[in-house]
């Protein structure tokens, strides 16, 4: 199985190469990608240099153009696709059907990967993407169990890539407007979720309150570790009971399941985290690379090493385990 690694900066890109990535994915410095954060992402020139470096190490570069084109401004997305192809991207990761149609028609030789944001969750959906846009690989939404994935791969003529480590969307990706409901900015349209520009913290009677837009997302007592107010990992009140309604502040880790995922026919494992620093990328990639080559007995210490790198130190196997539902 290939290891697909995130890079938010050229420095993280180089670290990922050194640490053993089979492919590195990144995006341009604008709203064409779903990690459109200040200080992140690549200029055209940075991408050109990074691709050249990756080629020398026999590592592939995937370019994520995985937001939805704003009507009237399609040229921004089309020119990003033109440039990514011209610069030699090994694959484009796309979510918008209009952009897929453009790339499939104009660059029939270009490898097209379907972003997790497209939410292709079953064999008929994937066949649609293969037949219509000649998709070669689909990144599956985090809504399937390992058993679901095994059944799926046996029915399709398309590679499957899945997220195994890092941030976890609780909602089906690409189908969530919670962020824009509270802030006006969404993953689909702006490439951001629960953006820092709309986050505020305030002290209130000894507790720390985190807000997103006009809404309270959490309140931390003294001594309680505080966290970033990602909307779906907030604490809310439902019928008088307070708690983490959708999901606790945890991150995804299914390294324990590597053998089952391989047996399920998964082609590539993806690490989330283009917003993370280069030291994190280097560490996670090198540990995961070792885990991929290790026997299950050798894997245990690597797994616990990874746990310490996880957000809030707590992890979940998410939808890959049926009990999560």
């Amino acid at each position, binding site marked *: 199985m290939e290891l697909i690694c995130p890079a938010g900066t050229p420095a993280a890109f180089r670290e990922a190469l050194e640490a053993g990535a089979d492919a590195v994915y990144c995006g341009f410095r604008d709203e064409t990608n779903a990690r459109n954060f200040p200080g992140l992402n690549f200029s055209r020139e940075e991408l050109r240099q990074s691709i050249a470096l990756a080629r020398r190490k026999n590592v592939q570069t995937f370019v994520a153009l995985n937001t*939805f*084109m*704003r*009507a*009237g401004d*399609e040229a921004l997305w089309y020119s990003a696709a033109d440039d990514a192809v011209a610069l030699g991207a090994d694959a484009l990761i796309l979510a*918008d*059907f*209009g*952009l*897929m*149609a*453009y790339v499939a028609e104009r660059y029939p030789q270009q490898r097209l990967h379907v972003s997790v944001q*497209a939410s292709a*969750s*079953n064999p*008929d*959906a994937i*066949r*649609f*993407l293969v037949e*219509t846009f000649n998709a070669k690989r689909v990144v599956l939404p985090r*809504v*399937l169990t390992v058993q*679901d994935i095994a059944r799926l791969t046996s029915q399709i003529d398309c590679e499957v890539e899945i997220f195994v480590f890092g941030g976890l969307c*609780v*909602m*089906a990706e*690409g*189908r*969530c*407007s*919670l962020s*824009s*409901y*509270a*802030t*006006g900015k*969404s993953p*689909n*349209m702006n490439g951001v979720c629960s953006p820092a520009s709309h986050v505020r913290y305030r002290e209130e009677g000894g507790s720390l*309150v985190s807000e997103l837009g*006009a*809404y*309270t997302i*959490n*309140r931390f007592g003294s001594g309680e570790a505080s966290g970033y107010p990602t909307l779906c990992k*907030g604490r*809310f*009140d*439902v*019928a008088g*009971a307070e708690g983490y*309604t*959708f*999901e606790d502040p945890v991150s995804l880790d299914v390294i324990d399941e590597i053998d089952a995922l391989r047996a399920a026919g998964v082609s590539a494992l993806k690490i989330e985290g283009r917003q993370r620093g280069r030291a994190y990328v280097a560490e996670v990639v090198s540990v995961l690379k070792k885990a991929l080559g290790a026997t299950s007995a050798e894997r245990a210490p690597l797994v616990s090493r990874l746990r310490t790198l996880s957000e809030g130190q707590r992890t979940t196997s998410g*939808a890959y385990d049926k*009990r*999560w*539902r």
Partner: protein
Amino acid sequence: MKKKRAALSLGPIYYLWDGPKWRDFYFRIADEADVEHVTLGETVCSKRQHFSEPHAAEVIERLEAGGKQVTLSTLAMVTLERECRHVRDLIRDSDHKVEANDLSALGLLKGQRHSIGPLVNVYNAATARALAARGAQNICLPPELPAGSIRQMLYAMPDFSFELFAFGRMPLAISARCAHARSKGLTKDNCQFVCGEHPDGLPLRTLDRQSFLVLNGVQTMSNSCAVLLDDLAPLVDAGLARVRLSPQDCDMVRVAEIYRAVLDQRVDGSAALSDLFRIYPDIPFSNGFLHQREGAAWVARGRSAALTLG
């Protein structure tokens, strides 16, 4: 120039209503509501299908007798083999037009006249064209779209039927996990259909008691009710073909009457708004997405400003 006329359309019920409530709702729509199109069928959770299915045939017959065009809705999220089979069977066997709400339905409907629901991501004309080329004849746009995007698409495809989500709590997210069951200490697999206890959604408030969202099984919806009134006329002039009303647990026949009157310019937006406040009380209204603001926002014009702030 002849004034353009937009049709009214009733979207599928997103909530779990018991069989008789579901049937009686549609009987009344069939007999009394001034809507041209009705899209129906379980859209949110495949586990609920047996509640409405026994009544579907008589409901469809009554709606058609009432002169309504009936479209059948597919599931928003299809992951299980059973769900795949259900979508395939529906598309193969149905005599009615089908509305696609996920990518599997899009694929299976190729070459067949069909509609696209608001849960499919259509953000631009390039996407709408790709879908129209495969047989889509009507697209209900996602509630998140700002007016600028809608106008661009109407302009780019003047002969195509676009539909706008103009009334109802907005579907904001869907998950493999059921937050509604989780809130009762249950899981999706042993949910005991607790979502049926909340025919208008289970309110989720912030820790500061702000109204925010409602849970509807695996779907998360806005607490606020989208209400687009004054915004409709310019979009209809630009070619908007249909206006969708999404069923809430309130008098939808009356809601349709009000929207028809607004579209026919017999009633102005602010008068319509005060009527809607009476029909669907205690629920904040919103139109922020259309105005490129946060979706929960209410952007008021003229007299309706005083009404909502007061």
